[in-house]
């Protein structure tokens, strides 16, 4: 048996646990910063083009953003040190992946139903406030991320962002291009800020 004191044993356990936890959590914030920047930029670009042209078709740019984000995430994580996936990190990935699936799914579903109804000669289609629904979903995912990572500041940022985004959607007339800027608020406050907080915390 090695000549290891009880204090040394405890020190080894504590230091190793801490070191491996930091190694696993490292770079968790980078994808959030990337997606936050993309969401913010895309919403500002769509708002500007929609306001100028009057056509909501510019919303199709969200699909382009998804592709750019997926490629960016691939290249960002490709050369990173391979680390085991911790439970919080896995949950975080699942939450945002499913947000993406639901957001795109809902968008596609609305377009498909609108096209079918239009093809049938039905000019009045059922409309829902997509900005409101997606803002709430995005804010909820941000709050869950903070809770999973045990970071109250991230949860608080998501709640503040959701309130601001929902207020913006509710205060401007329905169908106005300005509503799309709710995603710029969420992109900055619920994605970029938490991403930077994650990065700072795990860089220590």
């Amino acid at each position, binding site marked *: 048996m090695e000549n290891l004191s009880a204090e040394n*044993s*405890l020190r080894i356990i504590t230091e190793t646990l801490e070191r491996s936890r930091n190694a696993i959590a490292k770079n968790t914030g980078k994808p959030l910063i990337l997606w936050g920047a993309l969401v913010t930029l895309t919403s500002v670009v769509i708002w500007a083009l929609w306001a100028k042209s009057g056509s909501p078709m510019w919303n199709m740019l969200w699909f382009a953003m998804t592709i750019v984000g997926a490629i960016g995430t691939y290249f960002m994580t490709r050369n990173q040190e391979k680390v085991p996936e911790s439970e919080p990190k896995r949950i975080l990935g699942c939450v945002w992946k499913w947000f993406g699936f639901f957001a795109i799914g809902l968008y596609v579903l609305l377009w498909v139903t609108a096209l079918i109804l239009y093809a049938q000669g039905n000019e009045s289609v059922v409309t829902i406030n997509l900005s409101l629904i997606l803002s709430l979903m995005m804010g909820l995912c941000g709050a869950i991320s903070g809770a999973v990572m045990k970071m109250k500041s991230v949860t608080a940022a998501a709640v503040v962002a959701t309130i601001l985004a929902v207020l913006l959607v509710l205060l401007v007339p329905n169908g106005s291009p300005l509503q799309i800027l709710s995603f710029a608020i969420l992109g900055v406050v619920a994605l970029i800020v938490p991403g930077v907080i994650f990065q700072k915390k795990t860089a220590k």
Partner: protein
Amino acid sequence: MNETVKSFQPLDPLLHSELRLAVMSVLLGVPEADFVFLKAQTGATSGNLSVQIDKLEQAGYIEVTKGFKGKMPQTICRITDQGRDAFAAYVEALRSYIS
């Protein structure tokens, strides 16, 4: 005269080793870890790490799966329930030496 006799609990000799303790500590916090990660976290040499992993596996404290990732060989380790219990008992025993 009241005399308090302090009793020290025996320490598991298999865990009372710097490297094996570090390996178990890493595995405690993750579902599984590969050899490369364990080597980086413990700072051990490949040879020494292999020997200690074998010892922990033989004791039933960890499970080792050997396979390939692409063309590269890969060794995955995960802690067993027996290993988790042994680690908890070891930490409990350590307390009797400190308190």
